[in-house]
């Protein structure tokens, strides 16, 4: 065929068509979200679909506020970056649930509203729980609930090894118990020392339990905590694959019934009942006794900054609905979280006595980003988990590993 203007036009139109279609598409979606009663809602719970208790509660809270909520779930590790990108493009969600250590990063990015400015009441929430979302005295979100770590133990394995769980009071007695368990032919303890935030989260109870300070990773106290873990792995009290364990795979190891102890969180209680062996829960002991401070886990409900500030009224109603006392009880029961207010905690324990040690653990818990650390925490956490890995794998001594971590944390 001979080239003519007709073909030229056809080709030009064909190439331009998708481009204009794209432009039209994004334009229309932008206008509809601000004009209509549709509000966007992000959470890190892809495991709950629209028909789940959580999914229905979100929808109901939207209707109660007179809006249609469009809920999107992301993987929790993905949500922070997705939020940053969305904010950069100017289409952050109206209401967003994020993991508590991410709050300070998002605040640093300047994309979250203060709860005070929105007029949300956070006075009934426990200080140590809201601490992770408090920067320079202002809070930037309302905790939906808290979870934390404790030691699950397998009653069968312990009694076969002749260990009384009540005797586990400090590190020395715990290590002695692990030794007895190993001598009885069972496995000692499993935890997660993976090279992600999960690894740091699991190491912190021991680090803080020794009196460690996150701004001085290589102090003698930090070294003591890392040496404890290393001693367990070297002696075979803990398996080598803790280095690869996420908290989920660590739970799967514990659920085989071979392990005496498993360091894991509140969220496994539902699975613990299905594990098929009698179990108990003790708080993680400090080096010299008492309960070690544990890091708080759990999400915050936040309201990202919008260009159109008239949307905040509805967003505020949605947050209020999700965090009202009656709904907190139901939500935290669904998520297996400990409520962030004393009143709801009392109700929870009255309903389910199993939660008692967890409520105590949450009361003693600290936010990872609390105490003014904020966005310094991520730059400390990454070298910390690298040091844990280097020491447990035998690449470096605990002292050297933490010294290297401290120097890289200082660089930021």
């Amino acid at each position: 065929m001979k080239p003519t203007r007709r073909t030229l036009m056809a080709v030009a139109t064909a190439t331009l068509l998708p481009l204009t279609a794209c432009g039209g598409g994004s334009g229309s979606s932008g206008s509809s979200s601000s004009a209509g009663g549709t509000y966007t809602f992000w959470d890190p719970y892809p495991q709950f679909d629209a028909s789940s208790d959580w999914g229905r509660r979100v929808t109901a809270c939207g209707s109660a506020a007179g809006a249609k909520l469009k809920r999107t779930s992301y993987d929790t590790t993905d949500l922070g970056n997705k939020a940053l990108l969305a904010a950069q493009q100017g289409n952050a969600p109206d209401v967003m649930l994020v993991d508590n250590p991410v709050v300070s990063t998002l605040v640093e990015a300047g994309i979250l509203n203060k709860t005070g400015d929105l007029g949300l009441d956070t006075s009934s929430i426990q200080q140590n729980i809201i601490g992770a979302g408090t920067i320079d005295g202002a809070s930037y979100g309302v905790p939906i609930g808290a979870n934390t770590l404790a030691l699950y133990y397998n009653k069968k394995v312990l009694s076969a090894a002749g260990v009384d769980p009540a005797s586990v009071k400090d590190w020395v007695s715990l290590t002695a118990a692990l030794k007895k368990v190993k001598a009885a032919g069972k496995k000692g303890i499993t935890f997660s020392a993976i090279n992600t935030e999960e690894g740091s989260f699991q190491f912190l109870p021991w680090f803080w339990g020794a009196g460690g300070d996150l701004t001085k990773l290589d102090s003698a106290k930090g070294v003591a905590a890392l040496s404890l873990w290393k001693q367990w792995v070297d002696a075979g009290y803990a398996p080598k694959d803790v280095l690869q364990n996420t908290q989920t795979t660590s739970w799967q190891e514990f659920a085989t019934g071979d392990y005496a102890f498993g360091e894991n969180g509140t969220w496994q209680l539902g699975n613990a009942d299905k594990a098929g062996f009698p179990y108990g829960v003790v708080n993680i002991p400090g080096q010299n006794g008492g309960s070690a401070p544990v890091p708080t886990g759990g999400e915050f409900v936040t309201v990202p900054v919008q260009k159109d500030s008239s949307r905040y009224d509805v967003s505020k109603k949605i947050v209020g609905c999700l965090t009202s006392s009656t709904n907190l009880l139901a939500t935290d029961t669904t998520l297996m979280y400990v409520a962030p207010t004393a009143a709801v905690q009392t109700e929870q324990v009255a309903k389910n006595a199993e939660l008692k040690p967890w409520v105590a653990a949450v009361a003693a818990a600290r936010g990872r980003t609390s105490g003014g650390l904020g966005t310094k925490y991520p730059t400390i956490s990454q070298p910390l988990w690298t040091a844990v890995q280097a020491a447990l794998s035998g690449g470096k001594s605990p002292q050297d590993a933490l010294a290297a971590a401290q120097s890289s944390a200082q660089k930021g």
Partner: protein
Amino acid sequence: MTVARVDRPRRAPAAAARASGSGARSLRRRRRLTALAFLTPLLAYLAAFYVYPLYRNLDLSLRDYTVRSFVAGDAPFSGWDNFRTVLDDPTFGPAMRHTMVFTFVSIAFQYVIGLALAVFFNRHFRLSTVLRALFLIPWLLPLIVSASTWSWMFNSESGVVNYFLHFFGVAPVGWLTAPDWALVSVIIANIWIGIPFNLVILYSGLQNIPGELYEAAALDGAGAWQQFRRITFPLLRPVSAITLLLGLVYTLKVFDLIWIMTKGGPGDASSTLATWSYQLGFGTLLPRFGPGAAVGNILILIALVFGLLHIRVQRRQEA
């Protein structure tokens, strides 16, 4: 506005050739425009999916991005600061070394095993097609499936590899948990994944070598090894070169396999430039886009150098 001209009757080619000087010029112009119009989709595609991302990546690596300036879009220009940060980082040396070891050891084994299998399957024995198809499985499996499977097989406590070694009296090896073994383990998995690619390309290269050459060589008394050395290997050289180059580019940037199996650990015993770049950009709670992009650019640069090297070698061969 051009409707009238568009709709005018077409001239026969012969008539067009005999047209006046100005007519020929306009025809040439029209041809060029048409050619350009046909190029437009490709150019638009290249610009949208290659040039712009590359430009953004370069821009990211030359600015001091914090989470705040990332959202606000006002990051100050910082020159080579990000590259300096990256080069000074104690992780850089090991990551570079691991990338090179990972890439070259993987490619060497993939190529040798792929070539051996290609020659083997070139003999057309019974069931050879079925077997060859089976060898393609690693290629067909989603990487997340094969990487997770390797990770389970290499598990130090319950992995099937250690279970198997146990029968030979070998003590359990911490495949993914010992600093000396982690890199070896991911290389083994990567070799397994890369063999089918080498097999397929080299096999198709072998099909193009005429059978008469082998017959003639056999008449001259050349043995199997001599036939391979004097005929197969030299005639396969162009195909080998492209296989190795593509393999190099694929292997340099391998990320998912390592991330799923070890996340670059334990410590940074198996971290490569690709995993480190991701670690910096997305692996922590506080993304460091600038240094992450800088590592990415270094990786692109390395691939580019090898690409240019390949072109040069090929030109010299042709000359």
